[in-house]
């Protein structure tokens, strides 16, 4: 009975653990870090990440941030790669159903807290919503400088020459900047920030009405973007930033401007392109939009 209730999201949470799993002292520590992160947008606040019951690298930072901001009245959505039903998204959604007893949804518009890995939903988020990112490597300079002591100094001195050199070398070699995801941004003209491994297609959405929180569990960092924060993708005057986009429409819903997954359909080179944001795609099909294969496909 308990189990059934909690599956519906309206029942009580597991009694063996605190609301939203974390103990209150841990939540306070994370909450303080979140407020400082909010006050200094794009700056990585160190926090004493706890060992969570899921592995590091699987969203422990995002889970801790979600647990710290969650209220009993929340409606929670989790996406991985834009999809609600990928296995890790399911696992994290269940975790909060069980430990916080919150309602869950797959609909972007209904959710008050959305935890994401690698995507920003297509539907614009609104005031009152919070987007929580899972972040593997929060330091945008890490692959240029492996030492934390050094990169912290670079941020302190606003010394970002190394990053520009890297981007410039890209242009020299490939004729364009060859970073296609986790594309670095500058926040409010001060901190260079890693937007987590979202495709650069999503970068323009980073200036939004909702609160954005970033949690890196293994690396013990939290950072944040307040609503409407100025977020600029790094580029050069003669090589302006361009958000990538596939040369296709969604084969299921016909959407023209959404980020697409390429699905291999047979071993003869057949493939289809479908929205990576499963809720966005389903919503459009419900509203009667059909793509090239939308009418014939049995979409489970």
């Amino acid at each position, binding site marked *: 009975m308990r189990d059934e209730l909690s599956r519906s999201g309206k029942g009580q949470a597991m009694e063996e653990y605190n609301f939203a799993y974390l103990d209150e002292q841990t939540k306070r520590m994370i909450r303080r870090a979140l407020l400082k992160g909010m006050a200094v947008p794009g700056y990585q606040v160190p926090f004493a990440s706890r060992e969570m019951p899921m592995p590091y690298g699987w969203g422990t930072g995002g889970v801790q941030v979600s647990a710290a901001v969650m209220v009993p009245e929340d409606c929670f959505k989790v996406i991985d790669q834009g999809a609600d039903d990928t296995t890790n998204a399911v696992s994290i959604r269940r975790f909060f159903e069980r430990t916080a007893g919150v309602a869950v949804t797959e609909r972007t518009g209904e959710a008050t807290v959305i935890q994401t890995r690698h995507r920003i939903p297509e539907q614009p988020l609104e005031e009152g919503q919070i987007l929580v990112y899972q972040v593997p490597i929060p330091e945008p300079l890490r692959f240029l400088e492996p030492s934390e002591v050094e990169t912290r100094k670079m941020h302190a001195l606003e010394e970002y020459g190394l990053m520009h050199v890297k981007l410039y070398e890209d242009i020299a070699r490939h004729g364009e900047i060859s970073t296609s995801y986790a594309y670095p941004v500058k926040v409010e003209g001060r901190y260079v920030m890693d937007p987590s491994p979202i495709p650069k297609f999503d970068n323009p959405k980073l200036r939004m009405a909702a609160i954005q929180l970033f949690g890196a569990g293994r690396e013990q960092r939290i950072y944040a973007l307040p609503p409407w924060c100025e977020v600029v993708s790094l580029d050069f005057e003669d090589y302006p930033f361009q958000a*990538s986009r596939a040369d296709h429409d969604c084969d299921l819903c016909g959407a023209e401007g959404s980020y697409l997954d390429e699905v291999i359909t047979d071993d003869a080179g057949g493939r289809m392109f479908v929205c990576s944001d499963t809720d966005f795609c389903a919503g459009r099909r419900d509203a009667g939009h059909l793509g090239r294969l939308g009418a014939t496909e049995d979409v489970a």
Partner: protein
Amino acid sequence: MYVAVKGGEKAIDNAHDWLAEERRGAPDVAELSVAQIREQLALAVNRVMTEGSLYDPDLAALAIKQARGDLIEAIFLIRAYRTTLPRFGYSVPVETGEMACDRRISATFKDVPGGQVLGPTFDYTHRLLDFALEAEGLERSAPEAAEAEAHPVMPRVTEFLNKEGLIQHEPRPAVESVPGDLTREPLQLPADRALRLQALSRGDEGFVLSMAYSTQRGYAKNHPFVGELRIGSVAVEMEIPELGFAVEMGEVVLTECETVNQFTGSRTEPPQFTRGYGLTFGQTERKAISMALVDRAMRWQELGEDDKGAPAQDEEFVLYHCDNIQATGFLEHIKLPHYVDFQSELELVRRLRREAEASGQAARQEAAE
């Protein structure tokens, strides 16, 4: 036809059921009890306690059972459990000089007051498979214990050198500061020695072993001798502010290793012996010795030695990579779907190839003309 990674919920349930079945193994073989693991796989239990940072043999044994013998998975279970426990305070430093030793050896002296006690060790066994163990139910006779003097006083070996002023003096800090806690505060560099030791003690046995081994092979060589290795139980006491004195909370079995390392002196320090230190839960001596060597290697700055650029000298490298729970999580997360990022890479590579091909064709055409 279009399935991708759908039906996540059902897939997860099925996988968990299957896992439970595999854990049990063939039903006609008797199930392992937690007590059996605790008693008969004690060295595995000790490792899980040490790297899990939780002294509880029963829980460690349970974790090993649940993890199907995968010790890193078991350590993970213990860590995840530990993190939900409230922290009430910290103990007063345990007095390992008063340890009731089951094993105590020194490699630097032929004999020492209190004697060399071999204890239950694999050392000097011949590593020949003992097929007698395969036949279950054979009771072995208990060894004849030298009961007379069960636990004689065993003063610390390095103290003999200290009295002569031959070994680096480790003064107690004038003001006892509150010890740092890696599990409650984010690691910040440079870390003090107490935090480094904490990280090494929790660190992966294999990683710490390899780092220690690398110092023996010449990467920041520090010529260690095992000054003393002791294993036994010590009392854990905690100050109770309301009482104004320390109260014994219980006993733990520890392995302590102090290495004596050669040192020819530096710009700041006279020639003397120096120290490395290892302390771990239970009988875990490979780990404790490894820890002592790596500890010594990381003390190069304090002793005014040169930075030889060796991995074991690099505190940031060692501390950020020694934790097997962090490492295994991040390593294994590449099993998660990454198709969104891969798609953007795919498009980029296709475009770059198209462009390269086009410019190649143009060049060929030019050459032909």
